[in-house]
């Protein structure tokens, strides 16, 4: 009988369905909204009905007397509360002053959400109005209301970055363009609204069911806020109904829920309504951006001067810090010898912005890529050639300190342009502009650079892994990395399978309980595949080594001659089956030196903290992409219809083709919404459209055809060569749409979104 041989099977690059999809498709997945603890109470928050006012009195007596109400709290009841947020400039429950309509004044815990809601209506608050400040351009004017004593000029944050000398750059320029770009409010619209459940044990230990994207950082922050030892806090993360950056900061509802749980001694659940989600969860950072750019006659970029005004809103969350990412796009997407960047984030009584997929890069790219088209036209070059001339290449270190070890930018540009027939169509559509008919076609290109190998923002950018091999060759991967719907658990399992030669269904991923999982800095900055992936590979390789060494002893072969394939130990050279992996593990398991629990970590990726001047190689790898948009503009109505998006992404390497396509398609459509339909209308500090009827998400019939290509640059540090991709696909769209509208109509629009009204008015303005 000839020996059985086993072939190597790799899951890398295949189309692997998300591990938790079957459960989700049958409605069994229990999200935070679906969890109820025995004895649980329900909480609701009373928010300010004034934009800017002094609180004169709060009377909670009637609310507290309502049958079914267990507890009503105001700031006076929680003297222990501490400021939260990026600037620590707000208390969860406001004391004597409100600064926006969303401000939290009181909270109720009751037997049911309906009773809690009814109790809110019985709380009497008297206010004394203060003068409002809703226009960020007026924040620094003399006499403007001062929102926080600590910032007498209303400036929440500033960011300055410089390289070279822009005056010199300007002197060298043959062409200079300058525009003001205005970027609007949009919000995450996670389909699952925000929620949290807090429960104290009699010992004082706190369990939080939370959708946070950064459980370990929040553990520490909650501990500070509550004045308890972080070791007493356990965060359990139920499956999340969408993240996109919205759960990266602590927002007041979380500590408020904890206070109520503490006061009542009962588990307390607090879940938003959709309206509340619109009003009281973070937005994308609105920005007024002035960009001045120059080029020489030969098409070389010379300088960029950037001034941005960030409407910080009433308090500071991550939105204010988006310049970290924005300045990278200005300084380093293309080679720019001279760059001068300045951002001022100013307080107003408006909503405040958090982090949101792309983190400032949509705003920066919108400006930069429109200027690339404008300069190309002045220089007399095709926009693609102009970009290729200035694009970064592998090996470059930018003046800001970013080192592009792998860089497929030029490939992204050429592939997206070729597949969309960009150059020919652009000329053709431009020529067609003057032909009769109201419907004009246009094509536009835009590219982006984003971190793709983590981002060294916190003291560590690491992630830990625990790998457990059981006696039946089943693997449990316990990772610090959180899953927010992006498919990280599937990719991590694939990476483990690759090392251990086990089938995918032999791997269980545990990723949602801080009492069990090792430390991780959180889901953000497109870092999970890269960082947690490398961490998981580290543990799996250790396990592999251990198994092969043990197998070598039994088989009288050297470990190097052995391989793990399809759940078996085989001879590498011919794949001859030597023994099932389960058998090997079983015998190891019951030996005295088994140690089949393996720990590993990826501390630190080879990246640097930026210095005070924001210089430094902040990520271990960088992602690149080009997207080409084809659309139609009806000049009679201003309606823009997307036909096709051709995207080329440098992703290092495709690990899960199904998952990565899903990230890119979802990102493109999110970018489409940012460009065309979504607009959180904030007027005089009031959100006018806190519902899906008036806040328009893209729907199924509106999506464009999508043609997606991958540029596989095989990053040397990436897990199996991969780079992060989560944020990248949303970034280019608005810029590409702007350029396509210009191609179609000859009109360049520098404010978002491109609603029919805005487009129509812009077209008329030109005709007048």
């Amino acid at each position, binding site marked *: 009988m000839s020996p059985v041989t086993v072939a190597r099977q790799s899951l890398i690059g295949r189309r692997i369905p998300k591990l938790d*999809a079957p459960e989700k*498709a*049958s*409605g069994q*997945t229990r999200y935070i909204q679906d969890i109820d603890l025995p004895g649980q109470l329900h909480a609701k928050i009373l928010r300010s009905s004034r934009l800017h006012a002094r609180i004169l009195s709060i009377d909670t007596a009637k609310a507290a007397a309502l049958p079914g109400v267990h507890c009503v709290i105001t700031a006076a009841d929680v003297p222990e509360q501490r400021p939260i947020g990026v600037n620590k400039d707000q208390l969860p429950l406001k004391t004597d002053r409100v600064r926006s309509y969303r401000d939290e004044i009181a909270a109720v815990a009751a037997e049911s959400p309906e009773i809690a809601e009814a109790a809110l209506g019985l709380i009497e608050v008297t206010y004394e109005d203060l003068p409002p400040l809703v226009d960020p351009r007026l924040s620094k004017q003399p006499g403007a209301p001062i929102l926080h004593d600590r910032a007498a000029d209303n400036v929440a944050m500033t960011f300055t970055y410089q390289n070279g000398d822009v005056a010199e750059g300007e002197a060298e320029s043959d062409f200079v363009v300058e525009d003001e770009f205005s970027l609007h409010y949009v919000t995450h619209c996670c*389909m699952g*609204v925000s929620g949290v459940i807090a429960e104290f044990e009699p010992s004082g230990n706190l369990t939080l069911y939370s959708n946070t994207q950064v459980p370990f950082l929040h553990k520490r922050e909650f501990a500070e806020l509550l004045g308890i030892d972080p070791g007493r806090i356990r965060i359990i993360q139920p499956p999340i109904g969408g993240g996109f950056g919205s759960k990266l900061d602590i927002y007041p509802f979380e500590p408020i829920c904890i206070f109520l749980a503490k006061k009542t001694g009962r588990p307390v659940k607090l879940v938003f309504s*959709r309206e509340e989600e619109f009003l009281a969860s973070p937005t994308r950072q609105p920005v007024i951006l002035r960009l001045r750019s120059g080029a020489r006659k030969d098409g070389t970029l010379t300088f960029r001067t950037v001034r941005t005004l960030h409407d910080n809103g009433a308090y500071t969350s991550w939105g204010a810090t988006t310049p970290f990412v924005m300045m990278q796009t200005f300084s380093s997407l293309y080679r720019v010898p001279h760059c001068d960047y300045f951002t001022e984030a100013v307080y107003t009584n408006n909503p405040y912005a958090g982090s949101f997929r792309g983190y400032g890069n949509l705003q920066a790219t919108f400006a930069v890529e429109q200027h690339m088209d404008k300069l190309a036209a002045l220089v007399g070059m095709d926009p693609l050639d102009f970009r290729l001339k200035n694009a970064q290449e592998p090996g470059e270190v930018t003046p800001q300190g970013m080192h592009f070890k792998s860089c497929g930018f030029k490939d992204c540009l050429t592939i997206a342009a070729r597949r969309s027939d960009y150059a020919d169509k652009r000329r053709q559509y431009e020529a067609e502009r003057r032909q009769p008919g109201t419907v004009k076609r246009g094509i536009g290109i835009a590219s982006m650079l984003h971190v793709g190998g983590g981002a060294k923002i916190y003291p560590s950018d690491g992630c830990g892994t625990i790998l457990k091999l059981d006696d039946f060759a089943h693997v449990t991967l316990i990772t610090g990395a959180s899953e927010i719907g992006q498919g990280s658990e599937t990719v991590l399992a694939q990476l483990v399978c690759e090392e251990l030669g086990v089938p995918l269904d032999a791997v269980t991923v545990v990723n949602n309980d801080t009492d069990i999982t090792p430390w991780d800095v959180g889901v953000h900055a497109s870092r999970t595949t890269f960082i947690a992936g490398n961490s998981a590979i580290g543990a799996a390789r250790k396990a592999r080594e251990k198994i092969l060494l043990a197998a070598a002893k039994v088989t009288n072969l050297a470990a190097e001659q052995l391989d793990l394939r399809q759940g078996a130990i085989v001879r590498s050279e011919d794949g001859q089956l030597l023994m099932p992996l389960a058998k090997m593990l079983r015998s190891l398991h019951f030996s005295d030196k088994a140690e089949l629990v393996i720990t590993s970590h990826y501390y630190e990726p080879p990246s640097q903290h930026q210095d005070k001047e924001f210089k430094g190689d902040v990520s271990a790898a960088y992602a690149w992409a080009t997207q080409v948009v084809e659309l139609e503009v009806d000049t009679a109505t201003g309606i823009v219809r997307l036909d096709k998006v051709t995207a080329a992404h440098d992703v290092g390497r495709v690990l899960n083709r199904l998952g990565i396509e899903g990230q890119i398609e*979802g990102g493109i459509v999110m970018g489409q919404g940012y460009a065309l339909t979504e607009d959180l209308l904030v007027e005089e500090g009031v959100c006018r459209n806190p519902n899906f009827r008036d806040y328009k998400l*893209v729907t199924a019939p509106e999506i464009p055809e999508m043609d997606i290509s991958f540029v596989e640059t095989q990053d040397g540090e990436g897990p199996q060569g991969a780079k992060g991709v989560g944020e990248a696909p949303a970034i280019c769209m608005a810029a590409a749409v702007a350029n396509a509208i210009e191609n179609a109509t000859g009109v360049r629009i520098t404010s978002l979104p491109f609603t029919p009204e805005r487009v129509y008015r812009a077209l008329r303005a030109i005709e007048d």
Partner: protein
Amino acid sequence: MSLLREIRFTLNGVARQVSVPVTMTALAMLRDVLHLTGTKYGCGEGECGACTILVDGRSVNSCVMFAVDCDGRQVTTIEGIAADAQWQPLRESLVEHGGVQCGFCTPGMVVQASHVLSRDPHADRQAIKRGLEGNLCRCTGYKKIVDAVVAVADAGGKVAP
């Protein structure tokens, strides 16, 4: 607090009898009274489709339907679709085509897609997109969801168990 009314209806093939406040929505009854949490709250205003159920074979946003209006009807939720072998190809197709990310919209999508396919087992891509228009998804960009339903329609819609 509010007036209670007793109703009888068929829920996922099983006769049920419950007392519900007259002001309660069908969504709240399903989730909070009957503990069927597969049907999701996404907006409460009939705008997102996360709460889609079938009532007498019609798809309905359960958040804008009164619970008492279920009286005497046949109600099917995602739990019913999940237990129905007839719709196994649809669920599997969504999984295999990558139509599920965070999954919060998925139960509503599955129920709505089953409705679209029941009406027209060979529905084409345009009809499927239109049929799913009322179901919002923030994660996938819809393409893979549509692909998944198209694949089932191409195979003849309902595939016998």
